[in-house]
């Protein structure tokens, strides 16, 4: 395992690498988000605690909880009824940073399975419009099912190639790109992910991420905001993509502040390549911070 870490995360400082190794020993903290369209989060907490689940508030999202249990959350009555969504606590961050408001026109470009779409609908009080796009037809059925289970009224599902979405001619106030990625930050919940990280795959993904991002810029209103995120820790899928974007499009990186969480800044150097100092404004969360999956988030505007 040590070798796998060194090979996959060679770009990280030694101190961070050590902590990442330790996080694996401590284990993963599962989390759920109460679906406040259907139930108050305090009521959900009370119900699940009566059933023997131990819940602790996620500091950066008032309606989410870390859950300690060996039991399956997906087989509870509360899950069946759509009272909560099983969602990694760090994956709550991209919608929080985007901050969609009721009445706005929002695009979720890579939406399945729908954790972030349903979170945004909740934040928008089921008002406005979310275009939830998923290019893979198989994943679309799961997305549709989750939107129904959570009683989402404001979503329009599309099955388009994210790279070509700009052809619709639609313009949005807010865009979320939770980009297809290697998932290297998810090793805490799925250690085997590290075995499949091949150079060729990363190169393909980086190309895809850049083309999706370029297409999304054409869909963004002048005063709009775009959030780019991945559950990868690889700078090529994160800082390099953003560095390319700020050098090729007239976009700026915005500072990210979220109450209840401190971020690590973006990495400025990778394998001999240096990135713009602006990249520091990007946010990283490592699995050792809160025993969640690792995440990268960046907020952009014109």
């Amino acid at each position: 395992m040590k070798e796998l870490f060194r090979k996959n995360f060679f770009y990280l400082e030694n101190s961070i690498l050590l902590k990442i190794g330790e996080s694996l020993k401590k284990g993963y903290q599962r989390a759920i988000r109460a679906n406040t369209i259907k139930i108050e989060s305090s009521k959900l907490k009370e119900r699940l605690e009566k059933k023997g689940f131990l819940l602790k508030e996620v500091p950066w999202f008032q309606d989410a909880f870390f859950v300690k249990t060996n039991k399956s959350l997906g087989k509870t009555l509360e899950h069946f009824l759509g009272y909560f969504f099983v969602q990694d606590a760090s994956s709550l961050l991209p919608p929080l940073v985007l901050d969609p408001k009721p009445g706005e026109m929002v695009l979720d470009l890579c939406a399945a399975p729908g954790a972030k779409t349903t979170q945004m609908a909740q934040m928008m009080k089921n008002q406005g419009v979310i275009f939830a796009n998923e290019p893979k037809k198989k994943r679309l059925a799961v997305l549709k099912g989750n939107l129904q289970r959570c009683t989402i009224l404001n979503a329009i599902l599309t099955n388009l190639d994210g790279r070509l979405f700009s052809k619709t001619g639609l313009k949005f106030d807010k865009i979320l790109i939770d980009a297809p990625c290697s998932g290297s930050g998810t090793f805490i919940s799925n250690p085997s992910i590290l075995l499949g990280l091949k150079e060729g795959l990363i190169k393909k993904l980086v190309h895809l991420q850049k083309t999706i991002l370029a297409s999304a810029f054409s869909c963004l209103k002048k005063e709009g905001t775009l959030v780019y995120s991945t559950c990868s820790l690889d700078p090529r899928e994160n800082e390099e993509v953003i560095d390319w974007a700020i050098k090729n499009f007239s976009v700026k990186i915005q500072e990210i502040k979220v109450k209840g969480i401190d971020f690590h800044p973006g990495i400025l150097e990778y394998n001999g390549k240096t990135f713009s100092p602006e990249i520091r404004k990007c946010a990283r969360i490592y699995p050792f911070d809160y025993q969640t999956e690792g995440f990268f988030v960046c907020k952009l505007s014109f």
Partner: protein
Amino acid sequence: MQIKFLKKEEKLKIEEILKKEYETDFSFQEFSLFLKENKIFLCSKEIEEKKEIFLKINFFSFGLFFGELKKNDRILLSLEGGQMIALSARKNIAFLDEKSLRNFLLGFNILGTKEINCKEEAFVLLKYRDDLVGIGKKKKNYIENLTVKTRRLSQF
């Protein structure tokens, strides 16, 4: 497939059906409604306002499936449709106990429930304590489980 957004008086007609079937004063005032064949969907008002724009693009689906219009002015509600009206409903309700809830979630028909004003062949709201857990059809000696297979649990 043809999508038809409903006007105020058409929405009122559906509210009337719900009132007759469940004695509920549920109102669609804050939602937009549309029909796709016999299926009723709800969506945000902003979606209806922008319909001219998005109906031109190749969308997959939108809105929440509320229920299906059946013969003789009846509506077979989805679980979510049922959840929306359950709080104010006073008729065609059956209460499940723990054992019948388990059987229901696993996909079986239900025997021996406490019922409130359930007519034979009516679509009934199935409740467990304060939760609306599903929709069934009242038969002579049992309630038929109408939960779609994809939503049944394999274990509970």
